[in-house]
């Protein structure tokens, strides 16, 4: 359990906290998991660990400060990491900017659901385990979050198009 999930859990924590905080979260998560191992759903261990880490992060965070860090890290992504895959998908830089802005305008719950699906690659069962709802509810919520993201993105794209038209 430990060795199989260490890297994934560390990545989960790093995405949402500073490296120092992430190490602390990983350590605390494994201690809690060790104590509650009897309760672990054997077919969803990784999401179960994410769920524990999520609660530890929530306890540890000072709400907006952690969220701010996450946003800063996402903004910093473009400076830190080249993205050949993005180019392969034909995603223009401006489109990534728009997507980031659209995502940022969503509610925190929607943002987190989308990240669990996109970054942690979790399906509805996994997301349900992390956030503590039924898989069906997770599916519905994720569907709605996607729709809201699409809607925000369309709105921003429309605004950009309008601006471009005026400029031109």
């Amino acid at each position: 359990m430990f060795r199989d999930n260490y890297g994934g859990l560390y990545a989960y924590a790093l995405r949402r906290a500073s490296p120092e905080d992430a190490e602390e979260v990983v350590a605390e998560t494994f201690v809690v998991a060790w104590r509650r191992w009897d309760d672990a759903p054997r077919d969803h261990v990784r999401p179960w660990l994410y769920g524990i880490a999520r609660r530890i992060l929530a306890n540890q965070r000072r709400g907006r400060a952690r969220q701010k860090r996450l946003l800063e890290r996402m903004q910093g992504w473009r400076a830190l990491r080249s993205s050949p895959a993005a180019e392969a998908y034909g995603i223009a830089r401006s489109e990534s900017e728009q997507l980031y802005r659209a995502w940022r305008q969503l509610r925190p719950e929607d943002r987190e659901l989308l990240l669990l699906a996109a970054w942690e690659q979790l399906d509805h069962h996994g997301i349900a385990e992390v956030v503590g709802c039924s898989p069906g509810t997770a599916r519905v919520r994720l569907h709605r979050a996607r729709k809201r993201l699409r809607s925000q993105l369309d709105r921003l794209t429309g605004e950009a198009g309008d601006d471009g038209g005026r400029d031109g």
Partner: protein
Amino acid sequence: MTDRLLRDLAELDPIDETAVPDGHGPEADRLLAWVLAQPHTETPRRQQRRRLWLLVPAALMLVAAGWLLAQPSERPHEVSCYREASTGADRAEAQVGADDDPVSVCARLWESGDLWAEPRPSELASCVTPARSIAVVPGDGEESCVALGWAPLDWDASAREVSLLDADLRRFHLDHACPSEEEARAHAERLLERHGLEDWDVQAVGQTTPEEPCVSIGIDSDDDRLLLTPLRAPPES
């Protein structure tokens, strides 16, 4: 199109997982040794003992106060009153009737002085844990629940039932890895009846296929319905 959206979002991931230390390096070894050195069962046992001792005065107080369910025909719920806003904190269990609210019940336990020495916190928040139980923790509003990874509980009639319905669905899905549509529909209808939501509908969204043979039940509280959606079978453990 939506998969493309998630793929694009994945490209914004600030972490390159291949660069993250795996579970076989020296850092992981050190952490594993430290984790294994932590008490495994002592703390929960100690907590259970504390809980047992806390339950006795709590139960006596409840009986002495004549706190009974106002409507015996209505199903009572169990509530855990947490001493601190932490999932591992000491707690006392009590029952709450349909016409009472969990915060009031726990507030009375705090004020009785039989529970814990310190005075009652100025604010208490009611939450639903992933294990379906209702929890009351010191704190102000929904944020207190969310900070623990729990859902806020709205004790107003229908919202309360929806919260509990969601918890029941979670339990159903834990017990049934791959329910058929027939099973899911029958269970959904039973749950709606149990929670007094007879005016809700159960609707199938799509049909099961060999690729998606399982059915998941989701709540659409905006339109008062439960949605049966086909899912892939969960991976074998």
